[in-house]
């Protein structure tokens, strides 16, 4: 067999703002640094089991190629009007540049030539025996080395130049940041629509590589200097998804060839379908299936990303090559959940790999009338909620790591509709559609309605800091911060009317999934300058059904210039309560967390909202960065850290910031139910929250019951009831690690009466080091 030739080249690549930034990369031909089209990424290649290497953007090689990346459905789903059955084992998937595909049993043979003046290496992380790395070792300038190894087990892997410490690629990310990275996908050719023998079976798959670009590091490297991260800390100014940012990533540029590629290999789309997370291989008729599309996420950058999907939660099935169990589960030592689960924010640490299923199903909070009347594609954003990654060179929101996905217009002929194109990122950022007071389509009489009026004022915080804050108030809320709690019961029709005052704002109901008009995002609907009434209806839960139900913790926030406006305070908590089910009655003084979930004590239900603040940002104006100005919105330097929130039963009786100063934790027993603590990370950086006793020893007193508005359930039975994990094997932990916009619900289970401590550490989004810390007492009584 002939090895695949890779060439370590350098060159300059255009960024989303039209500037050139020096890069290095593994190309498929030799090019010089002066080449206007340098080869810095290999086009997709497939290592076949028969020993040959094939250049192909799609795999399986003989499978049908979906037009513009969008698989056409097989037929209408007879059991689910308005939804479709997808074709089973039929469609090929497109893959982006830098992807290498290897069939299990194949030999990966790569001959690497280093054309640069420094030593480099090619290393496949975790692809060797015992989860070790396998690589070329040092390749001197001008030298060629051949790497040959057997394809590892099926899954996704990162390859990169590992830097100075090959055994620990996290230690020296410089060459990776400069562009020396890519992805290896290993798949079984006998079952190419299954990531593992146990599933989940998928319609097609998508591979997303996340990356960050630091022009200062690039400049040093271009002059053949040595980048020392200690002397020049990394400062990413561009954030890419499969190599592109902003409007280029969203296929909204005037470059039609690029747009086509993005539609094919990056922007998910498909017909609405019915799925059941207990069994992604459910067949309704021969050759058809009820399943979603598989997402393969890889973080090749240095930033802790938080991929938030609008429209549908995703079902996460594995992390770093380890399949998540469907039953039992655990919390690992770092505070991460190891269990298949729903998420609307996918947490991606640097070098993380995750697989999740995007259902591509009816957005559950769209009302029936709106859903039944749809006749066009519905677009939903995906953006990173570590919001400094949403700008390019300090501004031009949304100019960073963004994507979208599409629920196709109904019908078998569902080619993507043309959408608006832009000449530049500045045009895209500065020309978001806004309307004065648009009508609410299919307006109903609401069960719960609030008006959200914008206000701004100086607010004094508990450390003496005083800052300009922007947020919302409702009818009788007073001017509090965070904005007032919104509480809706499953099945109720909700109306939220925004009145932005003098500017343009929206409200996005984070984690709630209505139609695009009611999703509150400018580039998929409109921004509001007059008023608009958002309408949605939270999905009703059913006992034992892991596919339905909205009860849980959410938040709402402005989605205009989001990076700035959320930091300015334009958010508030949102809770969906379950409707009481006759099989699951509720004790007096208690409420269930979800329809068949555990009961908790209403009187001590508590919200904790970690929030950090950069004073510089609070002097910026409403539209900072949107005109192309470098407003420094990629430089978030928190100087203050607060634990906002409080007990939810009492109505706040004072204005200004609401601080959580202590938690009362019920000692449960008999009719006394435990305390429910709801966590919402309103930071742009991750936090660690952990419990200790008086001696400083960790105490596993947190029983995790839900994440991102969805209960943890045992989904091990393909057709039987999926009982709450709290009933089958509680997830107990002393620590939880969670990033921007994630929510966790936990029951507090103190082992004995007494006073404990909850500490919340704010972590740097790159180094992971503790920046600021707060703690409060937890009084078990």
């Amino acid at each position, binding site marked *: 067999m002939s090895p695949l030739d890779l060439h370590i080249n350098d060159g300059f690549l255009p960024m989303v703002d039209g500037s050139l930034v020096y890069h290095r990369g593994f190309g498929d031909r030799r090019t010089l640094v002066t080449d206007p089209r340098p080869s810095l990424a290999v086009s997709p290649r497939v290592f076949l089991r028969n020993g040959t290497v094939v250049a192909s953007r799609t795999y399986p090689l003989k499978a049908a190629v979906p037009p513009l990346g969008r698989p056409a459905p097989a037929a209408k789903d007879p059991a689910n009007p308005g939804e479709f059955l997808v074709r089973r084992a039929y469609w090929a998937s497109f893959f982006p540049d830098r992807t290498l595909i290897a069939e299990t049993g194949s030999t990966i043979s790569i001959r690497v030539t280093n054309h640069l003046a420094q030593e480099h290496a090619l290393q496949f992380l975790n692809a060797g025996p015992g989860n070790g790395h396998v690589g070329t070792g040092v390749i001197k300038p001008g030298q060629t080395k051949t790497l040959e190894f057997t394809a590892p087990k099926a899954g996704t892997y990162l390859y990169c130049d590992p830097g100075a410490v090959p055994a620990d690629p996290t230690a020296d990310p410089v060459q990776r940041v400069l562009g020396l990275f890519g992805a290896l996908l290993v798949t079984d050719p006998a079952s190419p629509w299954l990531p593992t023998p146990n599933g989940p079976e998928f319609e097609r798959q998508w591979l997303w590589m996340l990356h960050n670009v630091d022009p200062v590091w690039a400049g040093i490297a271009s002059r053949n200097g040595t980048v020392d991260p200690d002397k020049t800390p990394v400062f990413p100014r561009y954030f890419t998804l499969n190599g592109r940012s902003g409007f280029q990533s969203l296929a909204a540029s005037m470059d039609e060839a690029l747009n086509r590629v993005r539609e094919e290999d990056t922007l998910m789309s498909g017909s609405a379908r019915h799925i059941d997370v207990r069994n992604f291989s459910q067949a309704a008729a021969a050759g058809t299936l009820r399943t979603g599309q598989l997402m393969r996420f890889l973080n090749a950058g240095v930033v802790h990303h938080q991929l938030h999907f609008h429209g549908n939660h995703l079902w996460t099935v594995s992390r770093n090559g380890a399949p998540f169990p469907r039953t039992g589960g655990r919390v690992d030592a770092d505070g991460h959940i190891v269990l298949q689960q729903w998420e609307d924010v996918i947490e991606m640490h640097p070098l993380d790999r995750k697989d999740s299923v995007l259902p591509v199903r009816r957005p559950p909070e769209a009302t029936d009338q709106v859903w039944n009347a749809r006749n066009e594609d519905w677009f939903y954003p995906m953006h990173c909620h570590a919001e400094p990654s949403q700008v390019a060179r300090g501004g031009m929101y949304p100019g960073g790591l963004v994507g979208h996905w599409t629920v196709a217009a109904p019908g078998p002929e569902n080619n993507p509709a043309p959408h608006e194109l832009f000449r530049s990122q500045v045009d895209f950022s*500065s020309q978001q*559609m806004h309307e004065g007071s648009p009508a609410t389509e299919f307006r109903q009489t609401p069960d719960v309605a609030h008006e959200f009026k914008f206000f701004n004022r100086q607010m004094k915080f508990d450390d003496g800091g005083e800052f300009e804050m922007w947020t919302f108030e409702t009818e009788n809320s007073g001017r509090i911060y965070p904005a007032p709690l919104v509480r809706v019961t499953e099945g109720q029709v909700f109306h939220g009317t925004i009145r932005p005052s003098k500017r343009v704002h929206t409200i996005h109901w984070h984690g709630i999934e209505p139609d695009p008009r009611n999703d509150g995002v400018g580039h998929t609907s409109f921004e509001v300058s007059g008023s608009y009434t958002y309408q949605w209806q939270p999905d009703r839960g059913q006992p034992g059904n892991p596919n339905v139900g909205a009860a849980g913790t959410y938040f709402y926030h402005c989605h205009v210039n989001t990076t700035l406006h959320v930091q300015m305070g334009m958010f508030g908590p949102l809770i969906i309560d379950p409707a009481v089910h006759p099989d699951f009655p509720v004790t007096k003084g208690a409420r269930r967390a979800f329809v068949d979930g555990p009961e908790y004590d209403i009187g001590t239900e508590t919200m904790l909202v970690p929030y950090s603040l950069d004073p510089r940002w609070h002097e910026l104006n409403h539209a900072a960065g949107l005109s192309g100005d470098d407003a420094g919105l990629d430089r978030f330097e928190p100087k203050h850290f607060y634990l906002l929130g409080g007990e939810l039963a009492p109505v706040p009786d004072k204005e200004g910031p609401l601080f959580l100063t202590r938690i009362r934790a019920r000692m449960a027993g008999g009719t006394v139910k435990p305390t429910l603590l709801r966590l919402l990370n309103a930071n742009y950086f991750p936090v660690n929250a952990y419990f200790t006793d008086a001696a400083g020893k960790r105490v596993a007193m947190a029983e995790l019951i839900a994440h991102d508005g969805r209960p943890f359930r045992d989904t091990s039975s393909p057709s039987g009831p999926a009982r709450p994990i709290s009933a089958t094997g509680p997830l107990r932990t002393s620590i939880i690690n969670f990033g921007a916009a994630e929510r966790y619900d936990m029951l507090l289970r103190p082992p004995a009466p007494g006073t404990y401590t909850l500490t919340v550490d704010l972590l740097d989004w790159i180094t992971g080091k503790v920046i600021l810390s707060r703690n409060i007492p937890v009084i078990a009584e």
Partner: protein
Amino acid sequence: MKPNPPEVTVPVLTRRQFGLIVGGGALLLAAGGTYGVVSRSTTNSAELVATAFGSLSVVNAGRLARLDAQGRPATKSLAAAASRITGPGAVAPLSGASRPGPGGQGVSLALHTHDGGVLPDSGWPQPANFTWGDVVLLEVTLTNSRPEPVLFAPGQLRLKLVPSGITVTPQDFNRGPGVIAAGATERLWISYLAPHDALDMELEYSEPEQDGTTSLALPLLTASQVKS
């Protein structure tokens, strides 16, 4: 993304609906009315700045309203905007304009708060989303004096607002990233959004392989009202 009707093949901003906030309240024009101001320098008087590959200079500079009287984008392309400066229907260049001295009017972009900021009394429509309502349009010549081609991208040229030092990404350009042939001189039209109260501006050039930037003063581009 918002879908467009299928028949729209080049949907450049045709569905935009900008709100209007007009300073003074008496400046609405008939359909097609546009606003603009030109301050034009010529190749004879243009300042030449040395770069690593040769030189660059600004040979034409104009300032136009971003929106027309109906609040739509005033021009649909960079070429159309450039023709308003150099073409037969160009608005008249201003004469006698000079750069403000120390202490002259600057911009205060970073200090506006949400309600404290007010739209400038511009004399022409400003976007209701509070993005900038002026377009600064420059024609730049680039001369490669080297014996080999050099790489160039318009994004290396950023508008710099003085005295704040804030730099601005190009809004549009008629020449994408690529090479300038050995010994060649190329002309480039490039546009930026600018705040209406910004008078003193520079063009900042950064070379991909070099550390630091070079600044080139621009002729004063006042925002007096001219309609055409």
